[in-house]
């Protein structure tokens, strides 16, 4: 019974945090809103991992794996963003397809005309 009450309490906390995240998204805009939403999401992950996924009962290995996984996430996302921030804008990737194919633009991508071969190259 006590275990069920604890799980219900954690679940109620998750639902409250979800509502908080939704309400704050109506107030904040831009980068601050994104950071607030991600911090709330991380808090919810902490609750789920420690109580629903039994990390509170399992010391040692499982906690190490959990911490390592999230450290690797931070390293990968962080290094990619740091590298992107150091680039000149024209070198940023345009995406997996031609930007010229966007709706409202030409449906056929523009191509450079074939190069004229100078006639003096051929004797």
């Amino acid at each position, binding site marked *: 019974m006590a275990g069920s009450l604890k799980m219900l309490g954690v679940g109620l906390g998750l639902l409250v945090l979800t509502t908080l995240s939704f309400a704050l998204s109506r107030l904040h805009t831009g980068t601050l*809103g994104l950071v607030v939403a991600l911090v709330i999401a991380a808090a919810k992950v902490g609750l789920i991992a420690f109580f*629903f*996924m039994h990390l509170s009962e399992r010391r040692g290995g499982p906690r190490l794996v959990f911490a390592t*996984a999230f450290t690797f996430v931070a390293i990968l996302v962080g290094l*990619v963003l740091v590298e992107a921030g150091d680039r000149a804008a024209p070198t940023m990737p345009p995406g997996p397809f031609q930007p010229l194919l966007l709706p409202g633009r030409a449906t056929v991508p523009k191509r450079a005309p074939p190069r004229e071969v100078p006639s003096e190259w051929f004797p």
Partner: protein
Amino acid sequence: MRPEASVRPVVPQARHFGDEASRQDAAHLGMWVFLASEVMLFTALFTAYALYRYAYPDAFHQGRAYMDVGLGTLNTYVLVTSSILVALAITSVRAGRDMRAGAFLLGAWVLGVGFLCIKGLEYAHHAHDGALPGAWYDFDGFAVPGASLFFTLYWVMTGIHALHVLVGLGVLSTLVVRAWAGRFSATYHTPLELGGMYWHLVDIVWLFLWPLLYLA
């Protein structure tokens, strides 16, 4: 008489498997390593999202205006509630109430099916608008550089997540059958704990997808 000549006792498990607590520890550690590899899969997608959001901040910020925030938020409540039901199933089976545990798991399964139905409704809306991934993008209402990338990542990230939900539903249905067949008890319920952990990971991934795609 030499001791070796006596009848050897029957040992259900070889000694190197240890006791039940050791087996549980090994199973949980193995499950965590598997879940970490799943985290790495989704990290690649979140990294792509971060890079393209950095490249096209305005398009990605405007993207939420073209999402159905109501349905996305409803899906968040649906998944969180299903996670709570799975947690309650485990506390029930630990108390020796395996029938009640099966009922909680069935509730979580129903909510998972509901999640996929709502997601399908959203996909239908986007397909109707022409907000399709990659070169199929044909949404005139949101035709700025980076818009097609936003929707490409939306389809790929939520699509792979939906595949995980589908696998999780298979796991949950197996657990329901086994719980009601009396295969779990207060002393043995490791498969229920591990299957529940997979379902919670599916929930965790959505808890990040929801703010990134719908809110911020």
